[in-house]
């Protein structure tokens, strides 16, 4: 069925993908084409009724990614300003996820080659890290501090300046 996809664009073909934990998802071919990996698979006629297996993407993030691609594929060309705005709002809401999901999206989008989503997830991650102390970042991202106290002290000393956000010194005088 996926063999007849050469006349790209208007095909209403649904592409099936299978998550690492065995769940099946469907999305329009235009949506699947937003993923570099899926596009190549489709071009190589690997998209069949059994679905394309995505060995490293679990069902939860995959469901989100399918959502993302479907939304963006439906609005890919000839956007009006309002539609672009709406897509922006969709993105902003879409990426409001907990850090576990964010991690999954970051890795999966990178793996699947979904550029827009990759950028979105990277930006969100950077925004979360910004302006926080190392301890706050550990808390946010659930990271265990594996430094010895000596190492930690050394690191802080090495770049001491970056750890001291101060008010302009005139205020101190």
């Amino acid at each position, binding site marked *: 069925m996926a063999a007849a996809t050469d006349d790209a664009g208007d095909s209403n073909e649904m592409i099936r993908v299978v998550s690492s934990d065995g769940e*099946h*998802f*469907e999305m329009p071919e235009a949506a699947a084409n937003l993923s570099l990996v899926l596009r190549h698979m489709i071009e190589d006629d690997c998209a069949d009724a059994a679905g394309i297996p995505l060995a490293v993407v679990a069902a939860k993030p995959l469901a989100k990614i399918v959502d993302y691609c479907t939304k963006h594929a439906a609005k890919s060309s000839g956007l009006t300003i309002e539609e672009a705005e709406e897509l922006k709002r969709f993105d902003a809401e879409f990426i409001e996820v907990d850090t*576990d999901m964010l*991690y999954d999206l970051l890795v999966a989008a990178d793996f699947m080659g979904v550029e827009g989503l990759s950028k979105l997830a*990277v930006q969100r991650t950077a925004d979360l890290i910004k302006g926080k102390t190392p301890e706050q970042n*550990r808390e946010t991202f*659930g990271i265990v501090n594996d430094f010895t106290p000596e190492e930690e002290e050394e690191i802080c000393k090495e770049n001491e*300046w970056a750890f001291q956000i101060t008010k302009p010194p005139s205020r101190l005088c």
Partner: protein
Amino acid sequence: MGSAVSKGKKSAEQSEASAAVAAAAARDCWSGLQEDLLHTVMELMDVPDVVRSSAVCSAWRAAFVAFRRLRVPTPKQPPCLLYACDAYGPGAAALYSPSTAATFRVPFLDPPLPRRGVAGSAHGSRAPSTGARAALPPITTLQRVRSREMTRAGDSGVAYGVDFDLDSPTVSDSAHIQYITAKRARDWMFRWVAVSGSPSSAAGGECVVLLVHMPFAELSFARPGDARWTSLTGLPEFSFARTGNTLWTPLFSLSELQRRQKWLSVVHNHTNGLFYLLRCCGSVFSLDLTSGPSSPVARTVLHSQRRYSSGPKPPEYLAVTPRGELLQVTRRWHKSTIIAPADASNDRAHLKHGVFTTGVELAKICIDRRPTVSVSLTGLGDHALFLGHSSAVCLPTKDFPMFRPNCAYLTDDVDGDLLQLPAMRRDVGIWDFESGSLQKLGDVWPLHRRGDDRCLLVLLGTVLVRLAELLKVEQVQVHAPLPRDDLGADW
């Protein structure tokens, strides 16, 4: 707008169990994030944030170290204000990030020792975040610097014997030697710097540092690793007879002639690899230093017939837009000097200066046209300009949304005698080309309003740097003078 259809749903029990497993695995997943992905994230952050993220865990630390080694450019990195302030002492500078309104104290890894003064700093440039140095030749290898000496026993200084002979800088004549203390040479000797390429690029040959240095704002260049600075003073294209009206030359006094030969601004154009130089007489030159150390090629780009006028000259800058267009910027200002009565900081009456920018004029030098012409501009469009001590940077505001388009961000840039006087106020703000007015630079403004110069920062060594360079670093510190001691003290 088809929605995803989940087929083959498992039982609720099953999916709950798998979710729990996923959550458990995900709990400390972030420390295992692929390094290249973490690098992509780091590219979007401020340097201080990147540095802080390295203290989160050892994996992030390793990623940071690799990131630093790669010296990945951080294109979204906005310029920051690097300045010296007394509160931070001589061993550190303050770094103000206008985009986040945070101020950082950035220590120099090798603080200048009182006894060494510039001797240490002039030997290379340092990097606040990496400690890397570009091995630039020492100050003593500049053509006019004849000697390095310790000052009187018991005194703690180094002084350089500088040749002030206008005529023949190559002939040693002790009559023209003046001694400049290291402390003064620190920000007096190096006036302007332009750097081509990245000092860290594998082919180190691509990097050239072009320096305008005192006492007569002459040009020298060096590549990292060179033993000496190479003077460009004798270059035939730069010989003043070519640019001035020879008939009138004898009428100028020798020192006036020297003044007109001074270099005002140097900039590197990344699109064609040429340096562009602006001379006090108004002429613009291009300089090609890529063809080997021994054969600099200079060309007159724009010949100026500017008339001589006495009185202080407005500061002028060359800047290169991201597309490689050459801008000439003239900053009009009003200067005043007053005699301040004795106060808490100084028990005698003393001079203070005030500077106020009254206008910023723009001209585009059309280097792609023959003959080259200068076209005046009314604004910058969607670009912002940063003018500071020793550098002018032009950035597209679409990439730096935190800055206002069609504006020039100004830092204090006084030169000459005024440099040595305490300031009544600092000339720092945002020049809006549309309204033609100077506006406050947000949070940092109060810093520069205080008249109480002894207690506060001394901003004369102000530079604008692209913080991006902190990671590629050498460049920054080439631009940045060391923090100065309080000028009032003992100049």
